[in-house]
């Protein structure tokens, strides 16, 4: 890890000094012992702030999109011939690069506008799982030692196996190494437990209809509609999201539970064939709503229905709902 960090800072410094990028999006140390915060580095000296560790959770592709779009917006009144391109460097692990692939496929920016600094990933520590492992006690100190996380709270120090606090999406991640990159730092990370990728979905599918509905309503009942999940989602980049539209008004703003269900259902459905399972929505949700059980289903369906499609796997296969085919399965059609 330290080695990777050192290399990362050097590369970042070089890119900035040579003016190959305008800004580098990376992680810096957070204000709490088990957190890393996104940061924007604009001058070579600040490259020292960059970190790469087990606490780097949110998907940085979101910020790449935001930065490029803000820049584009700010140039609206500039003469076309005087407009400049903003080049963003990004510290990217597997899921981040998949989001970038999706952005590129959806023509959000050009390939030459992003410089992908690929890093290998072995999964990040889920704040929710960590909190549960220490019974919600305040974490005073936290460090990784081998396969364990040593955590200090008021009750003393204890070692927790990393597996128990690693985010669920990381445990079964298929793309923990970048799918595209302009430079790679460190050696590729070992494969994760990919065979169990759809285990939760399979289990959920085997429940009865009533049980599934009860679970769905229970989870969505917790949601306070803060929209943090949408705001952090790299695939949610719409200028005006449907929840804020007023003509037509898709979802009511009140406390009606069906409005929340419809909001969640539709937001998740907008991820059909577009969710990279980075787990950022779960990390930021203040209420601990289980969105993954549902989002992963969309992933599984896209894989099964559309030629084993995996989001962001390659630049050449378009997301299934951006394409069409005469060969698609038709079993669901009533009286074909």
């Amino acid at each position, binding site marked *: 890890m330290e080695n990777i960090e050192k290399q990362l800072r050097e590369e970042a410094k070089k890119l900035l000094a040579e003016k190959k990028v305008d800004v580098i999006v990376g992680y810096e140390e957070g204000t709490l012992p088990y957190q890393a915060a996104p940061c924007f580095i604009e001058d070579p000296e600040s490259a020292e702030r960059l970190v790469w560790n087990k606490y780097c959770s949110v998907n940085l592709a979101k910020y790449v999109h935001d930065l490029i779009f803000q820049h584009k917006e700010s140039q609206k009144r500039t003469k076309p011939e005087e407009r400049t391109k903003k080049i963003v460097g990004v510290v990217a692990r597997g899921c981040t690069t998949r989001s970038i692939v999706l952005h590129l496929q959806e023509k959000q920016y050009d390939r030459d506008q992003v410089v992908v600094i690929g890093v290998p990933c072995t999964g990040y520590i889920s704040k929710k799982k960590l909190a549960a492992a220490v019974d919600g006690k305040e974490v005073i100190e936290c460090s990784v030692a081998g396969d364990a996380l040593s955590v200090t709270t008021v009750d003393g120090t204890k070692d927790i196996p990393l597996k128990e606090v690693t985010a669920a999406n990381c445990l079964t991640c298929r793309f923990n190494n970048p799918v595209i990159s302009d430079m790679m730092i460190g050696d590729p990370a070992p494969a994760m437990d990919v065979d169990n990728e759809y285990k939760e979905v399979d289990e959920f599918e085997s429940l009865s209809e009533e049980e599934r509905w009860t679970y769905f309503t229970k989870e969505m009942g917790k949601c306070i509609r803060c929209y943090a999940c949408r705001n952090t989602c790299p695939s949610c980049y719409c200028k005006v999201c449907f929840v804020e539209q007023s003509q037509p008004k898709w979802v009511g703003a009140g406390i009606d539970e069906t409005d929340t269900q419809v909001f969640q259902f539709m937001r998740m459905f907008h991820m059909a064939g577009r969710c990279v399972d980075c787990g950022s929505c779960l990390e930021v949700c203040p209420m601990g709503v289980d969105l993954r059980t*549902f989002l992963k289903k969309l992933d599984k369906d896209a894989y099964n229905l559309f030629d084993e499609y995996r989001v962001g796997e390659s630049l050449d296969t378009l997301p299934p709902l951006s394409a069409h085919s005469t060969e698609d399965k038709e079993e*669901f*059609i009533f*009286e*074909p």
Partner: protein
Amino acid sequence: MTENKANENWEPKIIAFVCNWCTYAGADLAGISRLQYPPNVRLVRLPCSGRVNPFYVVKALQEGADGVLVSGCHPGECHYITGNLSARRKFSMLKNFLSYVGIEPDRTLFTWVSASEGEKFAHVVKGVTEKVKALGPAKKLVKKFE
């Protein structure tokens, strides 16, 4: 708003989103041919089945439809060449996802009816009405207006 009570006089409300070129014309033909079919279906005409935003389906359910039918031209016969192929992709995922969260699969049905298939239109409407009737009034996702 009236309570959703399943008594024997209960008749389902079904919203059908149909394309202008095939299914709507098919419905027209059924009418011209004086074919009988249940009056439970309210048609909403759209340019193409590809124009049917999945939101329309979900929103119809939320606002009290007991069933939703989406119908367009047969694959390969779309007026806009590929609109119904995009629709097919969207709706295969939508239908799966709706039933995954626990909504009865028979509440949302998708089919193809061409302009010459008046008989099929009547037949489909009959089939859909029977299916939705068998399920009873919709209770899930339904907004209550007081």
